[in-house]
């Protein structure tokens, strides 16, 4: 069953042994960030953490690493926790076929239990805020769904944007926000600021796990994240009308902050340890003024540690990045089999494809760099044959080892756009890009000696199934094959 809120998901994680509840008092610094960093190093079955007691708070509850393992990501999609990565990505894509699945508005959102207005707002009292990385410029909120509408077309549901942006706490009711120029929220903000208007905003924190996934998914401008959430859930995403701004927000959120992005205001922000594993800061960014907070009783502060990969954000963004790229490539090139763009939000990506004609694979690689997401990412693209699993890095290394000839299989693109957070970009936001064609050349590209590849023995798959079965249970009394 899909989850309607974070609490339901945490219960499911608990039932599957994927949640650690920590009742001992924890210091805001350095305990919480240290525990989240440690959880990220526990591998593909790492649990979520739920701290129940934070020093200085009567009922401080913090959930960390909620999406931070393949087991948890599978459970977020209501799949068995042992589901493999490639299968999770394929299922994510299969469910996208049901997009758009309209959302439903439900009455009585639980966040209406408590309300704070204007100068009575003190974010620090509502949330046990804490420092994530040592050199962060302050305390951040980095896993909230930020909702805005297009001022030029405010009634268009699909143009309403739901995204996750880093938010620096700048006082009791003030947040710095990073609306990256390539993101939809920057388009909304630009339209508002050209008119000299503030941009109404709702920040929904502590959501059902699919909301976080769709908020991390690069979607087309007019596509609704909520309608993708419905497709992934298999049932409509439950929404509520935000009481101050009228924006559509997740019905089950723990905390809802509403206000405006102040028009034409920029303030120094950061630094903040980013998903690139490096700090970024030293830029003047917009500011949110919070005018109303609504929250559930004893709200859970869902937070995300990010730093040197892999951390929770790599699980959260990984499949969510692969799937739209896969679907965009396949729309024009049905030969594309799979895309693995899980490395730093797709700065490095691997594509497997059948080759229609000589040179086809490199054309596919180039196309990846010109997809909407690829404009800011896909700095290194590796293209492999259809029988190479891009999620199996030893197989990819084999393809690079034997199919790839640096004399002819490198396509270098100078002066391409890349996200400004890429620490290697120079000037900031500009980078070379490279496509490495590690596919087998096909006519009329007659090169190399690739006809001698070794293939599996005829009954290998049958034996793999049999041996796996024996390894997991009692072996038959005779060793003879049936």
């Amino acid at each position, binding site marked *: 069953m899909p989850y309607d809120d974070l609490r339901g998901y945490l219960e499911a994680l608990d039932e599957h042994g994927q949640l650690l509840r920590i009742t001992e008092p924890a210091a805001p610094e350095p305990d919480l960030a240290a525990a989240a960093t440690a959880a990220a190093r526990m591998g593909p079955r790492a649990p979520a953490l739920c701290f129940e007691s934070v020093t200085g708070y009567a009922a401080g509850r913090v959930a960390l690493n909620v999406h931070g393992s393949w087991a948890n990501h599978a459970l977020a999609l209501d799949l068995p926790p042992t589901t493999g990565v490639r299968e999770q990505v394929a299922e994510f894509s299969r469910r996208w076929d049901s997009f758009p699945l309209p959302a439903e508005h439900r009455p009585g959102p639980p966040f209406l239990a408590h309300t704070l207005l204007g100068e009575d707002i003190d974010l620090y009292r509502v949330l046990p805020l804490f420092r994530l990385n040592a050199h962060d*410029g302050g305390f951040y909120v980095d896993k909230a769904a930020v909702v805005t509408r297009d001022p030029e077309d405010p009634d268009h549901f699909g143009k309403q944007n739901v995204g996750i942006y880093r938010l620096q706490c700048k006082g009791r009711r003030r947040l710095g926000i990073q609306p990256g120029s390539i993101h939809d929220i920057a388009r909304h903000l630009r339209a508002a600021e050209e008119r000299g208007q*503030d941009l109404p905003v709702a920040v929904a924190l502590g959501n059902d796990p699919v909301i976080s996934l769709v908020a991390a998914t690069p979607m087309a401008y007019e596509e609704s994240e909520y309608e993708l959430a419905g497709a992934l859930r298999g049932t409509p995403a439950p929404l509520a009308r935000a009481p101050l701004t009228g924006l559509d927000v997740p019905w089950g959120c723990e905390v809802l902050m509403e206000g405006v992005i102040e028009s034409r205001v920029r303030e120094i922000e950061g630094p903040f340890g980013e998903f690139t594993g490096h700090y970024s800061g030293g830029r003047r960014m917009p500011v949110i003024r919070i005018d109303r907070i609504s929250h559930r009783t004893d709200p859970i502060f869902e937070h995300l540690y990010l730093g040197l990969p892999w951390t929770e954000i790599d699980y959260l963004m990984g499949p969510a990045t692969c799937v739209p790229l896969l679907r965009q490539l396949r729309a024009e090139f049905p030969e594309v089999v799979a895309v693995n763009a899980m490395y730093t939000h797709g700065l490095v990506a691997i594509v497997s494809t059948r080759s229609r004609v000589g040179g086809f694979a490199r054309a596919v690689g180039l196309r990846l760099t010109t997809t909407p997401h690829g404009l800011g990412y896909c700095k290194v693209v590796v293209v492999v044959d259809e029988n190479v699993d891009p999620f199996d890095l030893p197989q990819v290394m084999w393809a690079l080892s034997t199919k790839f000839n640096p004399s002819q299989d490198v396509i270098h693109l100078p002066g391409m756009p890349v996200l400004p957070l890429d620490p290697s970009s120079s000037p900031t936001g500009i980078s070379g890009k490279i496509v490495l064609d590690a596919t087998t050349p096909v006519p009329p590209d007659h090169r190399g000696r690739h006809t001698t590849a070794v293939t599996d023995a005829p009954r290998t798959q049958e034996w793999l199934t049999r041996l796996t079965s024996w390894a997991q249970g009692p072996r038959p009394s005779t060793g003879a094959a049936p």
Partner: protein
Amino acid sequence: MTCPRCLYDHAETVTAAPEGGAAVWEVRQCPRCWYAWRSTEAPARTSAEHFPAEHRLTPEAIDAAPELPAVPPLLPGVPEPAAAPGEDRGATA
């Protein structure tokens, strides 16, 4: 109170621990560079003397920092907003 990062002399106490008050911890913030810290953090986070040199900020660096995203020009006919940047212009409608 001095900001550990930009050395501004008017850093402020923003809030205190909801349970136990200032005896447990306070959060302090600089209204110039927006650096925030908790009183219970390590000296490298709380004191100007121990703050890492590579992360310090000066007023000149703040003023010279690029905008992200850049503030766009106003559309033709749109008057300059009356309120100064950062000024509280009341609750949203």
